[in-house]
């Protein structure tokens, strides 16, 4: 059974969401889903870019004005 982790990065400035996501993903199994909640426009760019670069499945949803959820499915 794959699990789902929500990561609250609201109010965190740029490199912090990325590092948090990196750390959280490390402790997860293949097939697990990480939902990273962010509201910093810069993290909106580098978190998905990094995760795609790593080969994971990535989706971005704008939940509210200026608030996003980056959904990362761990692939490897």
């Amino acid at each position, binding site marked *: 059974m794959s699990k*789902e982790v*929500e990561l609250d990065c609201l*109010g*965190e*400035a*740029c*490199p912090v969401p*990325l*590092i948090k996501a990196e750390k959280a993903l490390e402790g997860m199994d293949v097939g697990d*889903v990480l*939902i990273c909640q962010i*509201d*910093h*426009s*810069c993290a*909106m*760019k*580098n978190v998905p*870019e*990094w995760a795609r*670069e*790593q080969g994971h*499945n*990535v*989706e971005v*949803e*704008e*939940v*509210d*004005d*200026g608030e996003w959820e980056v*959904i990362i*499915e761990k692939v490897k």
Partner: protein
Amino acid sequence: MGDEQQAVQGEGGIKRSSRTRTRKKKKNQIPLGIMALVFIVAVGIILAWTVGGNVALFWMLGSSFGFILQRSRFCFTASMRDPYLTGSTSLTKAVLLAFAVTTIGFAAIKYGAFIKGLPIPGQSYVVPISLATVVGSFMFGIGMVIAGGCASGTLMRVGEGFGMQMLSLFFFIVGSLLGAAHFGWWKLNFIVRGPRIFLPDVFGWVGAVVLQLLTIALLWIAADKWAKRKSSSSSH
């Protein structure tokens, strides 16, 4: 419920079991955008009438610059930080490209004044370089990564309504004021001791532009190679 289930699955097909928040209906932002545009143009016209054309031009350029900065997610901080942090150099390359464009543009402006025998504009920005430049930029680099943005990035994100960076902006102003107040001492004791180099004086106009573009091109290639190497070894 059926509608929401579909929305949860999305186009990419990542399955999510939970949906903690119900989605708020997003407001259409286009009317607000048009209002902002009308406001910016109106202020520009008023400035041109009352203060002068130059100030109106600064206003329009500043507004456009901010808009482009926000939409493009252009970030000088990330351009310096991400190569180390994630191995991504897309912003590094964007900044280098911007440097290349401005190199040509500024060389044209300066050379244009030079061949007409006019004083070359912007020469007061040719300031001495020394170890102080290196130490200062290193400190600025640490500061901007912690603050989450350089000067333009901080201003842009304050405009987006990001709370933490309003704090950054406040202390940015405090620091700038302190720096300005003590600048005379630093200038006298550290800055003026370095050599003042204007590249066209040393290499000629063509030589200076070619040398600078070549340097930027080499950095671009290095950034490209760095990203490829990082992504091929990123199995951690």
